[in-house]
């Protein structure tokens, strides 16, 4: 039930402010998502906000290590 941030992150911090769950923070060199807090934005928005605001395509991506949040 989470997205993750890939190494292509350019550290711009745009995602941090948009996350409704405060799941995102500055990590070492790149930003990181706390999988325990991320809901894929379900319940707040139609699409994951971090992925929409991120300037680098394919950087905020689904983390397959976790089951999808409330997946139907």
């Amino acid at each position: 039930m989470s997205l993750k941030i890939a190494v292509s992150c350019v550290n711009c911090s745009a995602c941090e402010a948009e996350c409704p769950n405060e799941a995102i923070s500055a990590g070492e060199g790149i930003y990181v998502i706390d999988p325990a807090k991320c809901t894929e934005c379900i319940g707040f928005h139609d699409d994951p906000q971090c992925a929409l605001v991120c300037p680098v395509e394919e950087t905020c991506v689904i983390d397959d290590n976790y089951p999808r949040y409330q997946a139907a």
Partner: protein
Amino acid sequence: MKKMAEHKGCETDSDGGKKASCGTAAGENDLPPEIWEKVKNHPCYSEEAHHHYARMHVAVAPACNIQCNYCNRKYDCANESRPGVVSERLTPEQAAKKVLAVASTIPQMTVLGIAGPGDPLANPEKTFKTFDLIAKTAPDIKLCLSTNGLTLPDHVDTIARYNVDHVTITVNMVDAEVGAKIYPWIFYKHKRYTGKEAAQILTDRQMQGLEMLTERGILSKINSVMIPGINDEHLKEVNKAVKGRGAFLHNIMPLISAAEHGTVFGLTGQRGPTAQELKRLQDSCEGEMNMMRHCRQCRADAVGLLGEDRSAEFTTEKIMEMDVNYDLATRQAYQARVEEERNAVAGAKAAELQILADVESDIKILVAVATKGSGRINEHFGHASEFQIYELSTGKGAHFIGHRRVDLYCQGGYGEEDALETVIRAIKDCHAVFVAKIGGCPKKDLLAAGIEAIDEFAHEFIEKSAITYFKRYLEGVKDGSITHVEKGDAEIRPGEVAVDVVAAE
């Protein structure tokens, strides 16, 4: 390197007073007093003031809510700060300390701007927190910010509350068709928009924000990036639209685009304008409103006088070690002296124009000047990292039209072939270059390229010297000893000269 160490910012005695119509000067004379009060010490708003007063930017705002084809955020925003240098990002607390440290070291520092990298209003908390801290500790410093305008209408009231009286909005189009070629997407109200829809939202928000600023008496400058073949002609329409909504100054900047910056335009080979293309566009908008011609497309963490970046003296590490004593009285006393000197030379301009009083001609020529920025011809050709360009005509006398950045020709005292070629490319549209000193070899090579190097006015006022030269030129044309030829075009290399280039000297 010398240039930075030498500069004390107190050589303010030599601007030649008010320039006829450089930068904002044309309007400066007829501005309402309350507006003149706001801009007269602002180096970005007043061409005249930029010789005397310094500004600094703090990089607290890296996030952005739109994507521009001329930007690669890995290297910050290529057209609002010099590319290739990753700025140190500061917390608001670090930024406030930096402002105090700089203001204590550089007493003519009057303006603090937040200009990214990214959009300051996409980072409203960091931006306003920084303003808040500075307003408390250094209340005499003027605050300003730059924005892409997308969220501007939401923040105008907060901007007014912090007494921010200058805002810069980057407006590259007012037609969504054009905008779709510049902006791949925007992030707005939790959604991503693309194409014409995105550009329409952006332009609507920008115009609404501008109108709201004007209603509240907050001055707005418009930055536009000139992208040949995409928005170059269209910028005339942008000029009308922003003027109609009360914008005070228009700054048309050349696109910075190189493949190594990794921007969309860099990768598609989109070129920037030539010197004459930029000048023609600026000239054609000049009748409509004040044009800014002294912009250096500064870094988002630039410090000091325009064109002379001292940011390397104020890294976070150095600032945190500094013991800062913010002494308002000393700053004010210093600025009073600057004003005295500035006033003392005001009016000299009229006397200079008298030199041309009995001459009438349609001829206009450009000349380049090597100067350390004090209004005098006081730089060695080989040490010049930029040349100021003046247009000479019998109507306006010496009219400042911009500057051209070059690599230092003389590195460690000997000339380098390639560097000279780049200098020639940068000032090829000029008839002459005024210098304090120049060696025999470059002088010959310049002449071969049709540019006369003139050192007889060393350390004299730029405008008076240029006008004296021009009068002699016109007389020569009249008596047949000089054949007037039209010159070609030149190359622009935007951005401030790199500190590391300077330091390497």
